[in-house]
């Protein structure tokens, strides 16, 4: 067997580095990455009727402070609601077990996150526990839809009586 040429090591390292970069891109920056959890966390579960635009790896906050992130989102087939798994940093292990979780939007059009409202119970949530009190994402489309459906007939039928929903329009002579 001939001695290996000196550039063989460089070529091998280069090819390995290229494939390592490809593996990094494929696993860390695509949707493959969402299945992997990090070490120093514990998980909580919460069910929501509607999660809106919540995505995996969105932040979880208490009083605006980030304490973890959304690990996974799945549909519970029997109950037809969304089962959201939250992975919380181990140092925040004293969340009361009557705390409630809600989905908020940062800003009017920003991304959504899970906000936890702490309760007053002396017992704390443990790994794998489920948060019972939840509040779904507020859907702007639903709100606008309700407003249009409720407000539409009222304003057209009651021309004589000033509509309570639109005082400036009816106040004009």
């Amino acid at each position: 067997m001939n001695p290996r040429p000196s550039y063989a090591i460089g070529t091998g390292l280069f090819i390995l580095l290229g494939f390592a970069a490809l593996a990094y891109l494929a696993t860390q920056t695509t949707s493959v990455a969402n299945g992997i959890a990090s070490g120093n966390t514990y998980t909580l579960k919460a069910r929501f009727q509607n999660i809106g635009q919540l995505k995996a790896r969105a932040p979880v906050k208490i009083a605006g402070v980030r304490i973890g992130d959304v690990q996974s989102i799945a549909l519970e087939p029997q109950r037809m609601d969304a089962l959201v798994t939250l992975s919380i940093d181990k140092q925040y292990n004293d969340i009361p077990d009557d705390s409630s979780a809600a989905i908020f939007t940062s800003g009017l059009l920003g991304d959504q996150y899970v906000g936890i409202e702490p309760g007053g119970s002396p017992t704390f949530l443990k790994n794998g526990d489920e948060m019972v009190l939840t509040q779904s994402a507020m859907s702007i489309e639903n709100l606008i839809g309700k407003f249009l459906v409720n407000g539409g007939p009222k304003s057209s039928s009651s021309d004589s009586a000033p509509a309570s929903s639109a005082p400036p329009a009816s106040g004009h002579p």
Partner: protein
Amino acid sequence: MNANLRRNWLLQGIASVGDCGLFFVAVLGALPKSLRHWRETCRQVWFVGAMSLVIVMTCGLFVGMVLALQLYYTLSIFGGTAALGTVVALSLFRELGPVVTALLVAGRAGTAVTAEIGLMRATDQIDAMGMMAVDPLAYVASPRFLAGVIAMPLLACVFNAMGIFGGHLVGVTWLGLDNGTFWGNMTSTVSLHRDILDGLYKSIVFGGIVSLIAVFQGYTAPPTSEGVAYSTTRTVVFSSIVILAFDFVMTAFMT
């Protein structure tokens, strides 16, 4: 007289495109034979790929950083800075990674290949190989072509990874974007198949283009010092034009 000259010039241009096409077929035909010279291919992968790592990594880092900075400013006008990770990743994977890597490789390795082959031609080494019954296409041209096709996608991956790292550095560490938002929006949007693999196909094609033009220009360089110099310049000019044109065509087909 003038029209005649211009027609001549045009005809010569068309003829050299035809030469390049025939040369491409000849190089492809010599590929099976060149597998016997796999050590030469390996040495060329080392030269085209491994030796280009420093420039590709540095440029990738800075391209990612400046991309994050510019896009942060633009997105903040619309209040959409949460999409920074997505936009940086998509621009890198789909466009900037393959194109900038190909331009860098054309400048760093393509020129060297052209000058090397051009001087081999000028000093009659290529003819000497023919005398010794060594096919110069299989020993000189095909390994360099193959090495470009192998090295380019790997270099583009390294470029992309460094770009993401640079974007993260600027967006999260410097501008204070939330880490989970940066990665979460990126991972929920970027698709392995549609974005990363499409970028890889592009860079494989670009690798073929750059190394074919470099080898062809070297192979057909006039055997004078001036001829080799012009051929080296033409490698960079033609590679850049063809890469950008092919990029447009491939993007139009892929999206």
